[in-house]
C-alpha cells in the first residue's frame, strides 16, 4: 500500500484523518519511557471519570425510579457514601489541570528562556482550540440530534436534552466559556460547567505563574495562598449570607430530583431556582482554591 501512494503528494495529508489510523493511535499501549511524561496521570483521569459517571448514572436515574425512598435509605450504607461523594472526582480534575498548567507553563518558559508575547498567545489559543471544536459539536448534537436518540413515554422527543434558552441561541456563552456567569441555570450542556470554570482558571493562572518564572517565588507563593483563601472564604461567606441555602450533602446530588418535584411543591420552586442559580457562581469561587493548591505545591518544590 505504502508504495502505491506517493509520500510527497497532498493525498497523504488526507490519510491522517483516516478512522483506522485514529483507532490505531488510540489503542496503542506502547509507553514512552522518558521522564517528562506523567504517565500516572492517565490512571487518575480514567478512574476519576469512572467515579463521575457512576455518580451521574445514579443521579440522572433518580428522576425516573419507582423506589426513590429506598435510595434515600441506602445512603446509610457506607458504599453509597462513596458514590454520593463522586463530586470530589470533579475536584480531582481541577487539581490535575492546575498541576499541568503550572508545569507546562514553567517548562515552556525555561525552554524559550524568556517570556515572549508569542508564548502568551499560544498559552491562551492552544487550550482554546484543543477543547472548543469538539465541545461545540457535542452541543450541536445535543440540541439537534438527541430528540432522535431514543423513544418512550418520558423521552423528550421534541426538545432533546437542552433547555429552550439554549436552543434559541444561548450557546454563545459556551463559545466564550462564561456560561456559569451568565444565566447559569440555562447553560447548554449542563455537565460542561466544569469546562467553563476550568477555562476561567486557565485565563487567570498567569497572575500566579508570571512572578514565579521571573524569579519572584515568594510573590507567586503569596498570590497562590491568597487564591486558596479566596476560595475558602467565598464559599463560607455565601453560605453564611444565605442562611436558607441548602448545604446538605445530598442536595447537590439530587438536584435533578428537585427539578421534577419542583412542580409538586410549589412553595419550594423559588428555593430551588434560587439555589441552582447560585450553584455555579458558588462553584466558580470555591474551586479557585482547588486549582491553586497543587500549583503552590509545584512552586514550592522547584
Amino acid at each position, binding site marked *: 500500500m505504502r508504495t502505491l501512494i506517493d509520500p510527497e503528494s497532498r493525498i497523504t495529508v488526507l490519510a491522517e484523518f483516516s478512522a483506522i489510523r485514529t483507532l490505531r493511535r488510540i489503542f496503542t*499501549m506502547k509507553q514512552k519511557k522518558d521522564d517528562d511524561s506523567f504517565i*500516572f496521570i492517565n490512571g487518575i483521569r480514567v478512574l476519576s471519570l469512572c467515579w463521575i459517571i457512576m455518580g451521574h*448514572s445514579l443521579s440522572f436515574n433518580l428522576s425516573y425510579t*419507582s423506589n426513590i425512598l429506598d435510595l434515600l435509605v441506602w445512603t446509610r450504607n457506607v458504599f453509597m457514601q462513596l458514590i454520593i461523594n463522586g463530586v470530589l472526582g470533579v475536584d480531582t480534575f481541577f*487539581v490535575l489541570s492546575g498541576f499541568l498548567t503550572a508545569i507546562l507553563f514553567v517548562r515552556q518558559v525555561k525552554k524559550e528562556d524568556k517570556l515572549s508575547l508569542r508564548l502568551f498567545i499560544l498559552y491562551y489559543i492552544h487550550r482554546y482550540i484543543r477543547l472548543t471544536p469538539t465541545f461545540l459539536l*457535542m452541543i450541536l448534537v445535543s440540541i439537534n440530534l438527541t430528540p432522535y436518540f431514543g423513544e418512550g413515554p418520558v423521552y423528550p422527543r421534541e426538545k432533546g436534552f437542552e433547555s429552550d434558552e439554549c436552543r434559541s441561541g444561548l450557546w454563545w456563552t459556551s463559545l466564550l466559556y462564561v456560561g456559569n456567569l451568565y444565566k447559569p441555570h440555562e447553560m447548554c450542556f449542563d455537565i460542561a460547567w466544569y469546562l467553563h470554570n476550568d477555562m476561567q482558571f486557565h485565563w487567570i493562572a498567569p497572575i500566579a505563574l508570571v512572578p514565579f518564572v521571573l524569579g519572584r517565588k515568594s510573590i507567586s507563593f503569596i498570590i497562590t495562598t491568597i487564591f486558596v483563601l479566596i476560595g475558602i472564604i467565598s464559599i463560607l461567606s455565601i453560605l453564611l449570607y444565605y442562611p436558607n441555602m441548602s*448545604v446538605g450533602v445530598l442536595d447537590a446530588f439530587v438536584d435533578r430530583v428537585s427539578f421534577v418535584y419542583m412542580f409538586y411543591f410549589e412553595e419550594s420552586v423559588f428555593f430551588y431556582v434560587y439555589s441552582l442559580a447560585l450553584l455555579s457562581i458558588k462553584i466558580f469561587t470555591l474551586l479557585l482554591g482547588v486549582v491553586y493548591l497543587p500549583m503552590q505545591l509545584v512552586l514550592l518544590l522547584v
Partner: protein
Amino acid sequence: MILINFGRRYRLNRNIKILGTIITIVFGLICLFTPYPDCLLASGLSRPIVIAYQSLSRTFWSIIIGWILFLCSIHQGGLVERILSWSIWDPLARLNYSCYLVHSIVVRTMVLSQRMPFYYQAHLVVNNFVSHIFFSYAAAIVVTIFFETPFFIIEKKLLKR
C-alpha cells in the same frame, strides 16, 4: 520530573513519606465520611459542621491529590504509582475528553428511553454503572474519530508543532 528538569533530584526521607501518606489517608477519610453522620442521624449534622465541611473539603481533597501527584512525579509512589501508570489506562485516557462530553448524553438516553420506571436494587445499580461506563467509552471512540482527532490534526498542521 519537574525536579530533574531543573537539575535537582529529590530524595524523600522514608519517615516523612510514611507520615505524609498517613496524614493523606486521614484527610481522605475525613473528606469522604464527614457527611456520613448526616445520613445516619435523624436530625442530620449541625449546620456549622456542614458549612465547615463544604468550605474546607475541596481544599483538603486537593491536598490529597497533590500528595499523590508529588510522590508519583518523583517516582516514589510505589504500588499506587504502578497501578496508575498501568498501560491499560492509556487508550482510555486518550478517549477521556470525548467520554466526558458524551457520557451525559449516553446515560440520559439510556435512562429516559425506559418504558417503565426503574426499580432500584443493589445489583442493578452495579449493572447500570458498568453498562453506562462501557457505553460511554464506546461512544467516545466515535466522538474521538469524527470530532476530536480531525481538529487535533488541523491544529497541529496550523501551529507546526
